[in-house]
């Protein structure tokens, strides 16, 4: 223990931030190819156009998807109870997510390997499902986290879950799912209008502008619901930040609008929603004035803001329990041991800069718009 220069609360806070970084990393990096997949059947009409769309993400989607893999691994390593409860609780939803995600690798790889148009159309819709369904489900999951999830722990800390798939599909969660979907469609549209030429780029620009408007409206609507309808959770027992990771040692109450209390206590947290609205609005405007690269970064900023808003509203909760509020998982009682958090922090600090560096290098190598010429000159093109 004396080997670790940081105390337990600090480590927990750092890993809460890193959880945010990884989820935002996933939404920004994998998000644009989920959005691109969703837009594929709509922005491209001919086979060449569809191949152009697919090939804008062809060289990078595999690396991007590792953000999701890493996010899963980091939740497992740093927040084991969160991983255990959420993945088993959302069981059938997770299965749908996996089924949709499985369509992507094979869709990209198999699509253009056969010339038959029915074959290609099939995989195009496969890529659409592989893009839209994960975008929707992750948003629905966040919505349900904000509502609280029906689980509890036994004395052995065995998690039990009392809800089904249909319980997840409530109006508020679906609203959050639509926020997520429209946000990633916007993100994909900025990418496409940057990486392609007219007419695909023009169509993407139009879809993107609509998606920006939709995201703004839906995000605002979700905010109103959180303020006036959703019950937030608050810790009512004394907050012990360095206690053992045992969720059953606290008391929790619920109150409508409770998720907004952090913004009273810490006004700086308002930067989350401000960046959310600002980034998305800016991305829409930049698309209109044909500055797609800047629009891409603005939309990334918007994603950063929207996901931060969810995380900051919940803090210190990670996963509240609607059935047994004291079983709720918080930053202070659902982490790994200090040693694991420390080792994982070292590993992350060591590898993350390397990952960012070679990722940037890869994007530089593949820079430039994708055109029919690329499709013809590269035998490996999708």
């Amino acid at each position, binding site marked *: 223990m004396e080997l670790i220069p940081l105390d337990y609360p600090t480590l927990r806070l750092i890993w809460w931030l890193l959880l945010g970084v990884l989820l935002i990393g996933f939404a920004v990096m994998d998000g644009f190819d989920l959005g691109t997949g969703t837009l594929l059947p709509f922005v491209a009409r001919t*086979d*060449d156009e569809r191949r152009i769309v697919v090939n804008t993400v062809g*060289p*990078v*989607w595999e*690396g991007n*998807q*590792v953000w*999701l*893999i*890493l996010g*899963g*691994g980091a939740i*497992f*390593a740093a927040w*084991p*109870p969160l*991983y*255990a409860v*959420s*993945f*088993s609780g959302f*069981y059938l939803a997770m*299965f749908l997510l*996996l*089924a949709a995600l499985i*369509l*992507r*690798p*094979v869709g990209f*790889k198999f699509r*253009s*390997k*056969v*010339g038959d148009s029915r074959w290609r159309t099939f995989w195009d819709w496969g890529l659409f499902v592989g893009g839209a369904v994960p975008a929707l489900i992750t948003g629905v999951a966040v919505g349900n986290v904000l509502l609280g999830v029906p689980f509890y722990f036994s004395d*052995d*800390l065995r*998690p039990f879950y009392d809800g089904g798939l249909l319980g997840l599909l409530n109006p508020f969660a679906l609203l959050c799912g639509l926020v997520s979907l429209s946000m990633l469609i916007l993100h994909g549209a900025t990418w496409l209008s940057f990486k392609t030429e007219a007419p695909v780029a023009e169509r993407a620009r139009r879809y993107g502008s609509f998606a920006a408007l939709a995201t703004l409206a839906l995000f605002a609507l979700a905010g109103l619901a959180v303020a006036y309808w959703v019950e937030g959770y608050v810790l009512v027992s004394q907050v012990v930040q360095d206690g*053992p990771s*045992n969720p059953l040692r606290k008391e929790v109450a619920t109150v409508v609008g409770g998720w907004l209390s952090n913004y009273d206590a810490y006004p700086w947290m308002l930067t989350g929603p401000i960046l959310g609205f600002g980034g998305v609005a800016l991305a829409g405007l930049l698309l209109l004035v044909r500055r797609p690269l800047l629009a891409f970064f603005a939309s990334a900023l918007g994603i950063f803001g929207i996901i931060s808003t969810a995380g900051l509203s919940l803090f210190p909760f990670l996963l509240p329990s609607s059935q047994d509020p004291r079983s709720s998982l918080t930053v202070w009682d659902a982490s*790994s*041991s200090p*040693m*694991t958090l420390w*080792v994982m922090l070292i*590993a*992350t600090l060591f*590898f993350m800069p390397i*990952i960012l560096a*070679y990722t940037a290098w*890869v994007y530089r*190598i*593949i820079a430039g718009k994708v055109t029919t010429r690329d*499709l*013809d*000159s*590269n*035998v*490996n*093109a999708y």
Partner: protein
Amino acid sequence: MIDMDVVALSRLQFALTAMYHFLFVPLTLGLSLIMAIMESVYVMTGRDIWRRMTLFWGTLFGINFAMGVATGIVMEFQFGMNWSYYSHYVGDIFGAPLAIEGLMAFFLEATFIGLFFFGWDRLSKLGHLTVTWLVALGANFSALWILIANGWMQYPVGATFNPDTMRMEIEDFIAVIFNPVAQAKFVHTVSAGYVTGAIFVMSVSAYFLLRGRHQAMARRSMAVASSFGLAAALSVVVLGDESGYVTTEHQKMKIAAMEGMWHTEDAPAPFTVFALPDQDSQSNRYEVQVPFALGLIATRSFSRELPGIIDLVDRAEDQVRSGLVGYQALLDLRADSENDAARELLAEHWADLGYALLLKRYREDILEASDEEIAQAALDTVPHIAPIFWSFRLMVALGFYFIAFFALAFWLSSRGAFERNRWFLHVALWSLPLPWLAVELGWFVAEYGRQPWIIEGVLPTFYAVSDLSVWDLVLTIAGFVTFYTLLAIVDVWLLLRYVRKGPSEPEPQQGSAATGNGPQGPGLRHATAAYKE
């Protein structure tokens, strides 16, 4: 009480998805290195044929890799989905290698795989070669961390039970990384992957030679694969032996099960070549034994005894009783966390706590367990012997077959005599499924042989499941089976299609292969031009 149907179905689903995923992983491991070797030859000699070979094997690699990625996501999520108590109980240790795998290995592999396919025209020769090696390196690092995680399930070092959080927590991360079981398994497993890649290349190349197509490339491919495969096949068996040796140290029940050894034998123990193990009577029928052999292989000594299954069950019964003392202390501690006497008692007995948890199968309040139930729990530590005994023997036989096969291939290759020995080409062609059979058997021996434990001696498998219904599992198993079957059909069909199409040859010799209804469709309009350079 835990629903044993849910346990059985969860295990079935994990076995199905893991063994399916493991159809693609070994080929990725082996073929990535073979491609890297071929491309290295291209960069060193500048001869275009080696580039075209890399491209051809790369296409097949890509189809296989996509399936590996698709099925790999399922693996990582499944621990939380189906094994939530496991995830809670050991996530503090088990999660870390999985996360580091993402950071160190999979990011590398997945980021550069895109450039491998899209970077041919955008990178220098050396630049692209570096990318190919990084992909291969990433794949192998990936295997390292996964096997560190798996090795810990077999031999849970460097961790201790924390009663306040009701889970295992890490004490010594270095011990987890340098776990001898993990290290032996890593080299054994990646070598098996290299063998798989080498047989794949041998087999496809033999197909071309038998058809009289692409001979130049096929001969060169076989030359690479036979030397690479020989080294790998030797390594598999040597490291398999190392793996067996460390298993003897740390998983005595597993080695006894693999050997069908019911009674402790005088050292050095004989090796049973053939037997029909009978679980009920705890004995073997029709035994054929080689004196001394097992003792020498497993303990590397003439004097150390190998404990038999029946003695191990006796030991397990003592451990169940010791674990119950620990469990009582745990409950006392939960009632009053200041109870220092209970804390000390638990510290003495936590290592056997898992044995007490075996009783949870029979009753919730395990402190009330009867002597019969304790005896039954101890007996539960014995896995099903016959499937393990036979899977192990078949795997070993295949291992020796691969050595013989590659030794012969190496000899023929050095004499340039493949085409004169068409019988060998037929053998090579039909050997294609064998490495897959061997690696799946290996997975089975390692994981089924660990039962009833999910973490050896620490957590029983049945106790690790999620709170799911039978219907949840029926739905997802049906979903995975349907989905995976369809994907397998498409995958094999595509692989065959691209194998039949063969590598591109310089114009005009094989021009017809790349035109007409070429699988790339419109994309191939100028593709042949790109090949010429």
